[in-house]
């Protein structure tokens, strides 16, 4: 079965659906074929259903930083929600209809004028996927993972973020079932902004903790 699929790919290299990318070479790579082989074998053995991968891709596609931004904006405008979010991040996200498809918990880390939070996974690439989507490459690569727990201030400076010395930096290293999301400080000058406007300001990198939330065009 898998071999047939491979032969099919040989001849049908013009089709986009199973190939790396249009810009890539015509023949699918070895590992792409491997993924196909495993998937087909599992379906054939009735260990997974035929549509499950496709469905999970849709789940993953629906998880983007826009979800996290919505959570942050709600916490900025609703003090009760904020308190519930800080007490149990996962339950509060579920209130907003953001389901968690895995067994992870979520702890939301509040930035204040006294504490700045930063998240990392030094051992692998743990990340709050249900609420932010998949992590960027730099988060998974060695320099960030090696240095965030050693010299967070230098790491932040590489992102253009300078934290004053009287502000405590807390680096959270995910090693178990809990994932983290940073609740950035609400920037000044947004007092009249509605929730959607506020959410539009919140970037993925702010929820990792490497940059603050800023109002574009305002002075730093």
């Amino acid at each position, binding site marked *: 079965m*898998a*071999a047939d699929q*491979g032969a099919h790919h*040989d001849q049908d290299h013009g089709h986009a659906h*199973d*190939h*790396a*990318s249009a*810009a*890539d*070479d015509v*023949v*699918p*790579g*070895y*590992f*792409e074929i*491997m*993924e196909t*082989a*495993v*998937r087909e*074998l*599992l379906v054939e*053995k009735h*260990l*997974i259903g035929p549509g*499950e*991968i*496709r469905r*999970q*891709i849709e*789940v*993953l*596609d629906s998880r983007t930083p826009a979800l996290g931004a919505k959570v942050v904006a709600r916490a900025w405008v609703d003090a009760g929600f904020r308190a519930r979010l800080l007490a149990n991040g996962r339950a509060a996200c579920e209130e907003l209809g953001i389901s968690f*498809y*895995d067994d*992870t918990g979520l702890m939301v880390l509040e930035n204040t004028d006294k504490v700045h939070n930063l998240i990392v996974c*030094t*051992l*692998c*690439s*743990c990340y709050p*996927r249900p609420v932010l989507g*998949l992590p*960027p*490459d*730099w988060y*998974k*690569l*060695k*320099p960030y*993972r*090696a*240095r965030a*727990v*050693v010299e967070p201030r230098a*790491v932040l400076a*590489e*992102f253009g973020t300078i934290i004053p010395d009287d502000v405590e930096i807390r680096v959270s290293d995910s090693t178990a079932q809990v994932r983290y999301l940073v609740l950035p400080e609400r920037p000044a000058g947004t007092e009249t902004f509605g929730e959607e406007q506020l959410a539009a300001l919140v970037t993925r990198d702010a929820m990792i903790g490497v940059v603050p939330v800023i109002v574009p065009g305002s002075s730093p």
Partner: protein
Amino acid sequence: MISKEELMRRLPTDFGGLPAGRIERVEHELEPWEKRCHALADVLDFHKIINTEEKRRGVEALGSELIGSSELLRALDRRFCQYSVRKIDPHPGPACPQDGRGRRTPSAKSGGREIARCG
């Protein structure tokens, strides 16, 4: 004082505190087959065929020369295949196709894309 032997037990993925250079703010749009790999790992997890820790252990077992190289995702995919096949069928035949059909191996285009798959 940590002995040399103890130092050798350090996993190749245990990066905290190791010397490292500048953070290159690289990102890339996931290719469809990469998305399928992530989705496959999640689905395997849902079915308890392979759990998060086994995925992590899979990455660790790949060896330090692979970690951080463009070969990681590819080797990882092969490892998933091995683990899944072993659980489905403890005495597998040639279930995973061997490369030998003249396929071009994935190019250096994806160099630096380390995917430490876990959660």
